[in-house]
């Protein structure tokens, strides 16, 4: 529905302008300003300290781990680290916000400008600017559907550390938005700073969407919340773009408002309007002195940064001559990259062809099987050593690619390695020309009519003869040898 950059309306093309605010929950044993635990799915109100519940006289104390994770993530998005940042109080009343203010960073975030490069399906790359990353507390959860009149409050999440990562309005399509979130997710996962699970809410995306005639000033934007998967993100943007263009083309006006995405309908709708527009009355939190980072400590974090997906991709392309597409897929998830690199290590031949074959098996057959059986690489029955072993067998000509598919299924089912399964089931490829020749002769003898047809021009019948040989040898005959002999015989 949307092409690369423009949305075609009845009055001509419209440009989509999208900015994303990603809330990424920091992986940490304890909350941003209290010692309470942060486990997902715990019994309501069991992970709440006196600070989280805003008891009188309680004070916040910054959790150093969360600061470190924010700095690491800052480096991950190629951003400048601000050695001095300030925590502010964002004031508003709500039942799941015990203190009546959220501690956030308004004017002076811990991380400043950065960027991400995203790869699109057509093979192009675009750079998306990042405005800032700041640390803030999450609020608790209000539960409205358990009682006809009452609401229940769960404060487990209250005070959990979030990194809010704000993009520039540089994104121009739902595809780019999805690629941006995927890229960001792969980075935080690679760094181990956020688990990136959108379905559990540990990564949440608010989307600002507006449309304009190309070259015009920015249009009025709507903010869409409640988007909890990348698929929904794209749906929400496409729906919203269509909605806004329709309104504008009918001469209407876009309201600056917050809208909720309804995943069942694939539409957005305005949030129940709160009568009072919020004035958050930000001011520096007097309980927390400015956060001053030691430059040497920050440098230490930079030095210990793991290899990031972009660098890893470049290295895989260079070292193994992998195509960009394969490399992107392999580096998208840290687990995949780790699996792949471990497999390469045990591969007997590091020839680019062998490595590419390994990549094919990983991205194709293995991912297919994992998806089918709802498994992950962690629970995968085929280890990286075994997958490399299978590729070895193919490269060395012990089995054909076709037999390999069979061996792969047996490996999946038994957890055994390729070599022993080939041995056990006698799947070794038949390459002895003499043995194959006698089979070829027999088949040609048995099918004189076919031979005659072939010789009179029905080239397609060549495949029939190959098939017959394979059938007799149960697929074990070396396809190369069979082809060679048949060509000789049939002239």
């Amino acid at each position, binding site marked *: 529905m949307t092409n690369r950059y423009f949305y075609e309306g009845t009055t001509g093309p419209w440009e989509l302008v999208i900015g994303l605010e990603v809330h990424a929950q920091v992986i940490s044993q304890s909350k941003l300003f209290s010692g309470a635990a942060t486990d997902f799915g715990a019994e309501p109100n069991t992970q709440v300290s006196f600070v989280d519940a805003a008891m*009188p*006289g309680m004070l916040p104390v910054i959790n150093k781990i969360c600061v470190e994770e924010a700095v690491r993530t800052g480096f991950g998005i190629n951003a400048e680290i601000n050695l001095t940042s300030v925590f502010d109080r964002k004031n508003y009343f709500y039942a799941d916000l015990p*203190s009546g203010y959220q501690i956030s960073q308004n004017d002076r975030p811990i991380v400043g400008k950065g960027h991400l490069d995203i790869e699109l399906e057509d093979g192009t790359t675009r750079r998306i600017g990042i405005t800032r990353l700041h640390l803030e507390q999450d609020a608790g959860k209000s539960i409205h559907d358990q009682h006809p009149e009452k609401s229940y409050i769960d404060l487990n999440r209250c005070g959990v550390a979030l990194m809010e990562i704000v993009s520039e309005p540089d994104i121009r399509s739902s595809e780019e938005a999805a690629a941006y979130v995927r890229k960001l997710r792969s980075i935080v996962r690679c760094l181990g700073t956020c688990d990136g699970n959108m379905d559990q809410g540990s990564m949440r995306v608010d989307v600002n969407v507006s449309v304009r005639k190309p070259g015009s000033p920015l249009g009025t934007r709507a903010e869409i919340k409640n988007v909890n998967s990348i698929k929904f993100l794209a749906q929400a943007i496409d729906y919203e773009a269509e909605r806004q263009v329709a309104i504008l083309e009918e001469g209407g006006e876009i309201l600056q408002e917050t809208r909720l995405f309804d995943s069942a309908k694939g539409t957005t709708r305005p949030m129940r309007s709160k009568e009072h527009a919020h004035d958050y009355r930000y001011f520096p939190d007097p*309980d927390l002195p400015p956060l001053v980072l030691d430059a040497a400590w920050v440098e230490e974090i930079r030095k210990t940064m793991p290899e990031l997906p972009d660098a890893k991709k470049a290295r895989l392309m260079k070292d193994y001559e992998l195509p960009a597409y394969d490399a992107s897929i392999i580096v998208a998830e840290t687990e995949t990259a780790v699996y792949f690199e471990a497999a390469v290590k045990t591969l007997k031949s590091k020839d680019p062809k062998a490595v590419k074959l390994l990549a094919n098996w990983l991205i194709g057959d293995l991912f297919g099987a994992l998806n089918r059986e709802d498994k992950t690489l962690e629970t995968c029955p085929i280890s990286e050593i075994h997958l490399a072993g299978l590729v070895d067998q193919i490269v060395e000509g012990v089995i054909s690619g076709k037999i390999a598919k069979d061996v792969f299924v047996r490996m999946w089912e038994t957890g055994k390695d390729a070599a022993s399964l080939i041995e056990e089931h006698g799947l070794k490829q038949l390459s002895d020309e003499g043995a194959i020749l006698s089979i070829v002769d027999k088949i040609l003898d048995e099918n004189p009519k076919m031979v005659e047809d072939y010789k009179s021009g029905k080239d397609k019948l060549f495949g029939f003869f190959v098939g017959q040989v394979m059938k007799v040898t149960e697929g074990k005959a070396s396809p190369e040898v069979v082809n060679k002999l048949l060509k000789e015989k049939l002239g």
Partner: protein
Amino acid sequence: MTNLAVKPSLKNDLIHLTLAEARRGLEEKKFSAVELTKAYLDSMGEHRHLNAYILETLEQALEQAKECDMRLAKGEGRSLEGIPLAMKDLFCTKGIQTTAASHILEGFIPPYESTVSDNLKKAGTVTLGKTNMDEFAMGSANITSYFGNVINPWKRADGKDLTPGGSSGGTAAAVAGGLAVAGTATDTGGSIRQPAAFTGLVGLKPTYGRCSRWGMVAFASSLDQAGTITRDVRDSALMLKVMAGYDPKDATSAHVEVPDFAKALELGVKGLKVGIPKEYHLEGMPEDILNLWEQGKKWLVEAGAELVDISLPHTKYSLPTYYVLAPAEASANLARYDGVRYGLRVPGKTLDELYENTRSEGFGEEVQRRILIGTYVLSAGYYDAYYLKAQKVRRLIAQDFELAYQKVDVILTPTTPSAAFALDEKPTDPVVMYLNDVLTVPANLAGLPAISVPAGFSKDNLPLGLQLIGPAFDENVLFRTARVLEDAAQFKSFLRGHAS
């Protein structure tokens, strides 16, 4: 209180001892901690009309006193073992109601102990009860308490009930009236020094960050500081030693060494340069206050100090700055009292109604006024003109002091512009009431330590205090200078005669 009967003659002796004297008496077994505590509990029972305590913790106090006696018997008495204290009801005390003198916290029993009260407990003190105060420490006459006003033990010739000052009026009245040996207090704009001055006591506000704020109900976080109200300067030094210290639970508490303050007491002031800021000479300042200030200068010169005229040019902006910043912080600090989790809840049909009903009924007029002021000065469109401007002025006020301390060691001023006023003379205009803080507020804005020492009397024969302001984390200069004033004024001897 017949069950608590202590021989009247002994009781009269006991309830007028200083902390140091009481501690020596306990150590020398002249009386027991239980006897000492009973004397105070008895006295508390006799002086309920002062309304100094919101809650008397009789049973716990006797329990603690018994334990103290066991330790003392074994010769294991800690530094303040057996000393009965008044605890301002702003400090959260585990298992004991803590209200900040507000209806909104009535019945609230904290499941934790504030760092300051815990430090005191661990030094062996006995808590007699939770003292009355202005609601959330907002006030200068102790008349905003939900639990009623406090009456000053001191009387004027006309016999009218006087204010003990505020916000720590309950502790001041208790210590002056023989209802506690000493007490904890807090000071955001003068809430320790002004009541101490009004009741003839020593009131110390330490450097911001010297004592942990953890577990102390917050009024204005960047200004609040715990301190002491005591019968003499030595007691203040002894108490502060125990209360102070770095607390990892308070990010604003200072990571600095806590000296043995008592050692500074007898150093004298010879060679010290004492700054006299001209801006503290207010227009229309009463003669008795000016005379007291002159007397103070004379005493210090006689003891070998040198007077230096100084200027703190931004002083006149202190009060307006304070009344922007303190309410701003308070408006956020008090947002947690919403009727959802603890304290008062007045139901409503919607969440907003619950908030409105609870907070309208739970907060008194002065607290509501300051929440409104604070909300206003932080609002979009007003933030720059009020809050941000006030922050800049605050910086300038602090700079005034920094420059002054390049030339002087300590600054001498009066503590208050007047003596205690009668409760029926209280100003009806809140701004006039705010003027009570005019001499004390600058030290809070600059985060500096300051002490009020009783030094003389008003024309109505009521106590007056002199204030000393020191450089950050130099409480020692306050103690040694205050000791000289105390010695010269011979004020101690009056306490026993006047406390009713």
